[in-house]
């Protein structure tokens, strides 16, 4: 048992802290938020220079190696600063799909470009009726002698409009909700037949609805096993979910710090409102939520790094995300309530942490989704573990 950071993890933590202090103050974030693109190329280049785009990617392709635990402090920093850049889409999902499922040629083509900041990726997965289910894929790819022809609509693709390439889940066989028959294709975002409709999301991030109208992809665009991509998708989404849990810890801490500061400084009835027990106890419960969230994020990140059994891994990740969804909801709502009307103002960061925590509580599945998955994956009989 050891919760200390390694020397390398300390370096990453220090780098991200310095970087945020210098380049990602709340004012800087607001300028990025209001920019046409909604995320900053300058920030992206800086992250590449600091090596932050190579975390958890193989050293053979320019990455730093390591895993989710090594990325925790970065995620906590991203969460605290409410960063808008497509780190998760690009590094934790897109590049992970390539690194874990791609051919040597695909890795060599894409991973160094990601690490060096030359290429952003987005995962085009969700559809109108998929909810949080990864296997419900209606977008179809028919095969001909040249490769694939894709038709369908992908919804809310995170950072879909700024990505250079999309990794698209398509149905190449079977019925709409079969676990088999799903394939991953890499397609350039500006390929003929693609229409991108940009979206502003509640939390300030950008996304896109992307229509595929007979979009052609060559045979070698497929990542991983044709018709059998679901286990790879689940593995990588579990990885990203564990990282979002760590991000949530950073955001929760930020909300708590702002709320505590407000309780100390805001005066009513001639005293700081933090002297009122009704408010103190709620602040204490928010603090406990942060501790429980950190514990579960640590467990999830450790599991996606070390757990070989996919069922056990998935169950742990769902336990963590389910718990953290609850923590996000409680902390976000209480932080606004304890701020009073001020908390609802766009001017205050706490209203932005509220929006981000609300989004995290949905991202990769809400509490109900993960509780159901946790229970469904329980060892049988339920009586013994």
């Amino acid at each position, binding site marked *: 048992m050891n919760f200390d950071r390694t020397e390398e993890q300390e370096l990453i933590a220090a780098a991200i802290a310095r970087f945020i202090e210098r380049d990602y103050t709340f004012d800087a974030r607001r300028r990025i938020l209001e920019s046409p693109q909604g995320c900053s190329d300058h920030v992206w280049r800086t992250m590449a220079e600091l090596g932050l785009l190579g975390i958890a990617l193989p050293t053979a392709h320019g990455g730093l190696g390591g895993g989710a635990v090594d990325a925790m402090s970065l995620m906590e920093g991203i969460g605290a600063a409410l960063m808008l850049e497509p780190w998760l889409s690009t590094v934790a999902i897109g590049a992970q799909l390539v690194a874990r499922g791609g051919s040597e040629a695909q890795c060599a083509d894409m991973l160094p470009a990601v690490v060096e900041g030359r290429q952003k990726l987005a995962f085009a997965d969700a559809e109108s009726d998929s909810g949080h289910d990864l296997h419900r894929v209606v977008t179809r790819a028919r095969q001909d002698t040249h490769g694939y022809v894709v038709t369908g609509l992908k919804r809310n693709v995170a950072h879909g409009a700024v990505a250079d390439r999309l990794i698209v889940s398509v149905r190449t066989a079977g019925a709409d909700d079969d676990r088999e028959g799903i394939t991953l294709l890499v397609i350039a975002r500006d390929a003929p037949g693609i229409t991108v409709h940009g979206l502003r999301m509640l939390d300030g991030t950008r996304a896109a609805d992307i229509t595929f109208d007979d979009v052609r992809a060559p045979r070698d665009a497929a990542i991983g096993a044709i018709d059998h991509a679901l286990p790879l998708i689940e593995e990588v989404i579990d990885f990203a979910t564990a990282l979002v849990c760590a991000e949530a810890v950073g955001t929760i801490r930020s909300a708590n710090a702002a709320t505590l500061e407000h309780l100390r400084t805001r005066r009513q009835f001639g005293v700081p409102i933090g002297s009122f027990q009704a408010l103190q106890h709620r602040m204490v419960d928010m603090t406990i939520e942060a501790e429980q969230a950190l514990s579960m994020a640590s467990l999830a990140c450790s599991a996606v790094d070390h757990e070989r059994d996919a069922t056990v891994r998935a169950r742990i990740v769902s*336990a963590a995300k389910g718990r953290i969804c609850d923590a996000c909801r409680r902390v976000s709502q209480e932080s606004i309530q304890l701020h009073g009307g001020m908390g609802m103002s766009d001017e205050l960061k706490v209203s932005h942490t509220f929006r981000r925590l609300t989004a995290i509580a949905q991202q990769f599945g809400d509490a109900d989704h993960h509780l159901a998955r946790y229970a469904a994956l329980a060892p049988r009989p339920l009586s013994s573990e």
Partner: protein
Amino acid sequence: MDLEYSADERAFRDEVRAWLREHLPGELRDKVVRYAHLSRDDLLSWHRILAEKRWIAPAWPQEWGGTGWNVVQRYIFEEECGYAGAPPLVPFGLMMCAPVLLRFGTEAQKRRFLPRIYRGEDFWCQGYSEPNAGSDLAALRTQAVRKDDRYIVNGQKIWTTLAHMADWIFCLVRTDADAQRKQEGISFLLIDMRTRGITVRPLMLMDGRHEVNEVFFDDVEVPVDQRVHEEGKGWTVAKYLLGYERMNTARIGTSKRELELLKRFAAQQRRHGRPLTEDIRFRDKLARLEIELTALSITNLRFLDALRGGRAPGAEVSMLKIKGTEIQQLLTELMLEAAGPLAQAIGSADGARLDDPFLAALAPRYCNMRKTTIYAGSNEIQRNIIARHALGL
């Protein structure tokens, strides 16, 4: 980061586990696991088995019988005992009176009391709460007036757990009625329960059991050499005890065992012709509980890891108490829910043996465990402590 125990820690855990398997009497374990009544003899017999192994007081200094274990080993030991279904150790002597004596007692007091506590020869209880001094403990009014080499004690204590089994009681009493602050003028006395003038009256609780008492003091004479620390410094002693390192306060091991029992039990219960564990509403409650316990066990380990680095425990103990007791209560609540309407029958009315004493114990157990969020500093007091000491409010 490594969430697993190290090889050494695992070896230690296995050693404890193997020893418990061999030495925890099955009869005692069954009583604990089935929520049966534990007599004074039950409690003391387990105490003496541990004393013989010299594992009864791990946290004491080694010269007085401590094991020299670090905080992680002590935690593992307690977690394994709870998980194995060992009877709880009555804390009043071992974990409350003894640390006070070790910190504030004279050499003579230590020599007089510690070995007897260690061997389980004296059964202690705690005289803190009074009818008008609960969470506001410093409002206590039991009075001790100095007369030559004795104090004359008059007053009343309440909620005194196991006073009816006890040989000794340690008490907070008021020795200076005119002190400026109510925290001043309090002293810490050790009183022999056989002293003339002490009356113990049972307080029957809603679970139908006799666990707590009222203790009345009527001109009770206490030798001055049974005062610990200086006169008027009793509050210092009380505060020390409050902050005394208790990293097992969450009782993870016991809750893990009870959760496993709950899952087995619920899988055997049927609703609408199906196992209860397939009922989505119940299943979600069970899942949330299990996940909360998982989170707390890691939170507990994180705190231990920090403590191992030499940091003094602070508000962490309060967090563990709040979450740990919430989980303990929820376990009893879900157990009662799983048992359904049959569990409302709590005993036989005509003296016949009950078919299923376990089923009959669940509702009283649910009632009894309401105490956990009230005792040892109510969870509201714990929140006050965190607000003040961790958050600076």
